[in-house]
C-alpha cells in the first residue's frame, strides 16, 4: 500500500509544474495575440488619454514580468481580476455564477454517456457476432457522428414541440430556483427538500443531458465492446472458469479488466465535455460557462476570458489527477 501512497503523492506534486506551465501559456498566448485588448474592446476612436487611463486601471501598462507575477499571485489567492465590462465584477464571481450550470450539465451528460456506453458495449461483447452486436456497432458510429445542435433540435422538436413533455431551453422555470447552496440545482433541491424545484430542474436537464449523453456514448460503446471481447478471450478468464469460479464472478473480473482503458477515456472525455458543452449550451440556452465564454470573447472582456481559461485549465488538471488516482487504485501495474 505504501507504493500506492508514494504514487499518489508523486502524482499530486506533478500537478504543480503542470499548472504553472498552463498559467504561463495562457499569459503568453493572450499577450502574443496581435492587437491591444483595450482598443479592441472600445474601438479606435476613443482619445488616447482615455485609453491610457483604462490600460492603467487594468494594470496593462506595467512591464510584462510585473504583470506576470501579479497574475500568478492573483491566481494563487483566488483572485482572477475584475471583468472589464458590465459593472466590473470580480471574474471569479462571474465564473461562480456560470460554472455550476455547466458542471451540472456535464455530470448528467457524462454519467448518461458512460452508462449507455457500458450497457450497449457489454451487450455487444457478450453477443459477439450476433445481429444485436451489429446493431450496437452501428449505434456507436451513428452516435459518434451526430452533430450536437442538429440532434438537440431534433429532440427539442420531438419532446418539446410535438409531445410537449419537456422544456426546450433554460435551466429552471423562473421563480422555481431552489435556495442556493452549491449552485447545482438538483443537489440544492434535494438538500432543501424542495420537490417542485427538483422536478423542474430535472425536466430542464433532460434534453441537453440526453443529447450530450448519446453523442458521447458512441466512443464508450466501441471501447467497452472491444476491450471486453479482448479480456474475455484471455487465459486468466478461462483459468477462472477452470477453477470453478461462478460465471457471475468471472464476468465481474472481466469487466474490471475491461474497464481500465475506459477510465482513461472518461478522464479525457470529461475535459472535452466541459469544453464541448458550449454547443449544447447554446442549443438549449443553458446559462453556463460556454455561453459566458462566447459572450465575453465577443466583448473582448480580456480578464474574464483569461480567468475562464485559467479556471478551466486548473479544473482539467484536477480531473486528470483524480482519474490517475482511480487508475492506480484499480490497476496495481500503474503504481511504481
Amino acid at each position, binding site marked *: 500500500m505504501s507504493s500506492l501512497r508514494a504514487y499518489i503523492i508523486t502524482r499530486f506534486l506533478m500537478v504543480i509544474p503542470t499548472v504553472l506551465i498552463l498559467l504561463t501559456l495562457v499569459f503568453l498566448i493572450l499577450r502574443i495575440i496581435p492587437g491591444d485588448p483595450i482598443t479592441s474592446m472600445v474601438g479606435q476612436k476613443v482619445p488616447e488619454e482615455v485609453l491610457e487611463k483604462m490600460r492603467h486601471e487594468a494594470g496593462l501598462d506595467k512591464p510584462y514580468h510585473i504583470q506576470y507575477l501579479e497574475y500568478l499571485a492573483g491566481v494563487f489567492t483566488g483572485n482572477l481580476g475584475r471583468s472589464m465590462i458590465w459593472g466590473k465584477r470580480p471574474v471569479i464571481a462571474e465564473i461562480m455564477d456560470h460554472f455550476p450550470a455547466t458542471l451540472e450539465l456535464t455530470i448528467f451528460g457524462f454519467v448518461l454517456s458512460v452508462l449507455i456506453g457500458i450497457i450497449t458495449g457489454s451487450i455487444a461483447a457478450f453477443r459477439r457476432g450476433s445481429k444485436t452486436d451489429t446493431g450496437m456497432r452501428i449505434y456507436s458510429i451513428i452516435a459518434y457522428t451526430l452533430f450536437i445542435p442538429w440532434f438537440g433540435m431534433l429532440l427539442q422538436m420531438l419532446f418539446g414541440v410535438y409531445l410537449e413533455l419537456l422544456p426546450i431551453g433554460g435551466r429552471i422555470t423562473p421563480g422555481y430556483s431552489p435556495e442556493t447552496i452549491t449552485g447545482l440545482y438538483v443537489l440544492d433541491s434535494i438538500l432543501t427538500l424542495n420537490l417542485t424545484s427538483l422536478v423542474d430542474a430535472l425536466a430542464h436537464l433532460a434534453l441537453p443531458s440526453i443529447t450530450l449523453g448519446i453523442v458521447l456514448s458512441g466512443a464508450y460503446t466501441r471501447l467497452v465492446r472491444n476491450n471486453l471481447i479482448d479480456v474475455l478471450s484471455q*487465459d486468466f478468464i478461462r*483459468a477462472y472458469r477452470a*477453477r470453478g469460479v461462478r460465471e457471475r464472478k468471472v464476468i465481474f473480473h472481466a469487466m474490471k479488466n475491461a474497464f481500465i482503458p475506459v477510465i482513461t477515456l472518461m478522464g479525457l472525455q470529461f475535459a472535452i465535455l466541459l469544453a464541448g458543452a458550449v454547443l449544447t449550451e447554446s442549443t438549449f440556452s443553458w446559462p453556463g460557462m460556454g455561453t459566458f465564454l462566447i459572450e465575453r470573447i465577443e466583448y473582448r472582456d480580456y480578464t474574464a476570458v483569461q480567468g475562464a481559461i485559467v479556471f478551466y485549465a486548473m479544473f482539467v488538471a484536477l480531473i486528470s489527477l483524480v482519474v490517475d488516482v482511480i487508475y492506480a487504485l484499480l490497476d496495481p501495474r500503474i503504481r511504481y
Partner: protein
Amino acid sequence: MMLLEVKNLTTIFKTKRGVVRAVDNVSLSLDKGDFLSVVGESGCGKSTLAYSIIKLIDSPGEIASGKIYFDGKELTSLSEEKMRKVRGKEIGMVFQDPMTSLDPLEKIGDQIAETLMEHTDVTKKEAWQIAREMLEKVGLPPDRVDSYPHQLSGGQRQRVVIAMAVSLNPKLLIADEPTTALDVIVQEKIMDLLNEMRKEGRAIMLITHDFALAAERSDRIAVMYAGWIVEMGEAERLTKDPLHPYTRGLIDSVPDVWVDREIKPLPGFPPDLVKPPEGCRFRPRCPVATERCMKEPPGVEVDGRYVKCWLYEVE
C-alpha cells in the same frame, strides 16, 4: 474402477468451412497416482482433449459423443452448475502461459482465496491462511500472497498457478503445456513440483509437445495425431520401441545431445481436419503405408500397448 475413464470421446468444432473433428473417438483411462502424458504436434487435439474433460470447450466447439467417467460421475451429462463444482475442486488445471493465466488486477492471495471460498465454507481469513500454506508448499515465500502477478517471475507465477490448482486437493491435475513458456532450469523445477503433487496420490495428465519431457517424467504416454490416439502405453517401452510409424517418426525427429545420430524430420504437415485424408490420417506422411491404409485402421493391443495401425493386424 479407474479415477478417470474417457470412452469414445469426440469433440467437434462447427466452423464455416465444415466440421472439425478435433478429438475423434478417443478412449483413455487414468488411475490415482498415475502420470500420463499426451504428446503430439500443435493442432493434434491434445489441448481440446484436456478442455473436453472439464467441459470448457468454447463455442463453436462441443462434445459430440462419448462418455467421461470421473470418480463415479459421468461428466458429459452433468449440469453446468454441477460441473462447475467439479472444476477446481476435483480436477485442477495448470495452464501454458503463467504470464497470462493470472488476473493482473488481483492479489495472489485473493485469487487463491476466491477459488477456495467458491467451493468450501471457509472464511476469507481462513482462505488467506490456506493460500499462505499453499504458496509455502510450492516453494514460494508465504508473504507472496500480498503480491500482484506482475511482481513475480514466470517460474514463480507458474508455482502460484499450481498452488491454486492443488489448493482444493483435486484428485486429478491436468497440466496443459505447463513449462512451454519457461526456461529449462525452471522447467525442471516445475516438473519436480508436479511430481510431488503426484506422490500425494493425485493423478497427473500432462499435455505436451515435448516428447523427451514426457518420456522422462511420465509412467504412460498417449501419442495423438490429427485427433486420434495413435499409440498409448508404458513410457519407457513406447520410447525405446515405438510401434506406430508416427511415434517412430516423432522420436527420430527429436535431437539428442548425448547420442550422435542423424535427426530425421517427419516429412509433410498434419492434415486439415475439415477434410482429413481417407482411411488412416497419417497415411500421406507414412513411410510404410499400403493399400490397406485407405481404410480406417483398427485399434489393436500389442505387447500390452494400444496402437492404431494396420501393421499390427494380421490379414
